[in-house]
């Protein structure tokens, strides 16, 4: 069960992500991503939309697969900036590891 946290998107703004809810789940980012890895990065973005922190932390390894190629950001029809979102999620995860996410 992924618990939705309505306030999470605001929390993410502290990590430089303000486009979480722009995404409308079309999957163009996952289609263009050279990793061709499951639903990356769409799945992580969906978790971010929901505020499913547990899921993000459980799957945090995936965030470091990203090659920073920028194709997803380039093709996103909603200009939701998926590449930057992944980087923001990394910052969130690192802060969590340090135990400073809520500081």
């Amino acid at each position, binding site marked *: 069960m992924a618990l939705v946290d309505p306030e999470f998107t605001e929390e993410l703004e502290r990590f430089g992500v303000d486009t979480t809810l722009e995404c409308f789940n079309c999957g163009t980012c996952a289609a263009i991503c050279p990793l061709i890895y499951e639903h990356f990065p769409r799945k992580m973005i969906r*978790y971010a939309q929901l505020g499913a922190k547990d899921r993000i932390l459980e799957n945090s390894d995936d965030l470091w697969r990203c090659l920073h190629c920028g194709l997803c950001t380039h093709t996103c029809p909603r200009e939701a900036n998926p590449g930057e979102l992944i980087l923001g999620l990394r910052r969130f995860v690192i802060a969590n590891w340090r135990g400073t996410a809520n500081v």
Partner: protein
Amino acid sequence: MADENKANESVSESKVGVYICYCGGNISDHVDVEKVCERVKKVPGVAVARTNMFMCSDPGQELIMEDLRSGAVDRVVVASCAPDLHETTFRSAITRAGGNPYIYEHANIREQVSWVHHGNVATDKATRLVGAATAKAKQLKPLDPIRVEAKQHATVIGGGIAGMRAAKDLAARGFPVTLIEKSPFLGGRGAQLDRVAPTGEKVADLISELAGEIINDSAITVYTCSKVKDFEGFVGNFTLRFEKQPPQSAEDRNKIKEMSESGKGVGEFIPFVGVCPTEIPETSAEFAIETGVIILATGFKPYVPAQGEYGFGEFEEVITLPEFIRTLAESGKNGNVLEVNGRKIKSVAMIHCVGSRQIPGVHKEDETGHLNEYCSRTCCSATLHAANIIRETYPETRVFDFYRDIRTYGRGQEELYEQAAKNKVLFFRFEEAQAPVVERNGGSHGYPLSVKTKDILTFGEEVEVPVDLVVLAVGMEPNDISDLVDMMKLPVGADRFLLEVHPKLRPVELAVMGIMLAGTCQAPFDITESSAAASGAAVKAAALLSRGYVELDPFVAEVDLEKCTGTGACVQACLREGALRLVEMEVGGEKAMRAQVNPAVCTGCGACVAVCPENAINVKGWTLKQYEAMVDMIVSEESAA
């Protein structure tokens, strides 16, 4: 006997023209059309037999018209497709050639032959069908359509937006109109909205304008608090009796209370109530009107969720979209968070398809055993419109939208969906068999409810959303008008909405001639579509009235007074009230009872023909003699190749 001889004589004189169509191969690929033509030429009474690639084309019709004009033929048989398509085409060709359109008989050798049989048997069957049509055609007599005077008056039942639109359009066309509304108010369900999608106009403005026009139009008489009690007559000549009563239902009395509390009076729009056009009656009164056409605009009611459906009736935080629209309209803006009854609403769930698109085996039938299997069509746009208002007015109130499919069809409506996404409404998609579950929130999030669902957009994972309020986007159900349905014998679809004659080509007419449809009594419509349907119905009604008379097909029962002995068997068998009765008349110097047909009411079903012991009643254009001639020819050796 002398008469019968004379009749036979005229039959033997009939000159039948037979016109057989290739239908561009549709018929001739399987039926040897030329062979049929050669065989039919030998049938007694056939003066001319011709073939053509397309008999319905101008040159094909010209063949027939030329033979009629030259006097070569005086009865016409066309063997082609089903009569449904081109019977009227050929009847009108005969009329243009100066003939009577009812000296025509049709043989269907496409659907009934070439599309289902092949080879010699097809040619043989076509020959027999054409032969039978020829035998009948020999006996056809010129007939005149039945002409009925049409009362220059229209009645509209239902005072919502559709009813008012239809009444106003008819009055503008010059016809006096009576508008009958069962509640004390004009405006219908439309009055219970606020701003309407996609334009954002206020219904207050729309309804004030329309109701004002109705009230100020001297050609329109409005009867509120009135219910139809009795209906009789036929197209052009209906009689309606209705009763005006002091309001009795709790809903009406609540609205009257709201009206007095609002301080507004007659003729003014009261939000979520409507416009009260006249004083509310204190005593009952009965009225009767004679009217030429009736437009039904009896409207819809919002679906009421079952007890416990998505927590409805269990949790006070679960409300329907109409309730929410009113709440939203009436809550004054007080900061960036929506407040309902003093409660801050930081998180709203909106659930689509409640009481719509129900599936047998998945959803539970209502107490009458019905499921609403249709899409209510308006709720997606209305829901997203409300979601946009929330997000744009109260940016700190979040909206979570649970849908099966989003159907924001229509001009300017897909944009609402896009706008909702831009407004950061978060969507969840669920499968019909795994609908969201609304529960008391046990967690420590400070939200009273949680909505759980298996979310397709999260790759089928279970998600749980904590919320302060759940809004159910309820669908539309037709108002219960079973009394009118029984009285007027109206056709009702499996979805319980009224059923038009043809869904595409005759969408505002009912099978009962002279009764039209307007608005949501027919199907879920938005205001635009309701107005379009109402204007369409008004034009159809005006077209019918403006000729001053109505012409009906002459295929109705006819009594042969020389044979009728007044047994009354036909009257008992008659299925249509008022079509047949026994009347006293002079027969051979004595008074006797004899059957009499009211041709405007008779539907020509033939139930009377079957029971008459004297063979004294027949349906014109379909007499027993004509049937016998057809059967004789089908079994005769002459048409057997």
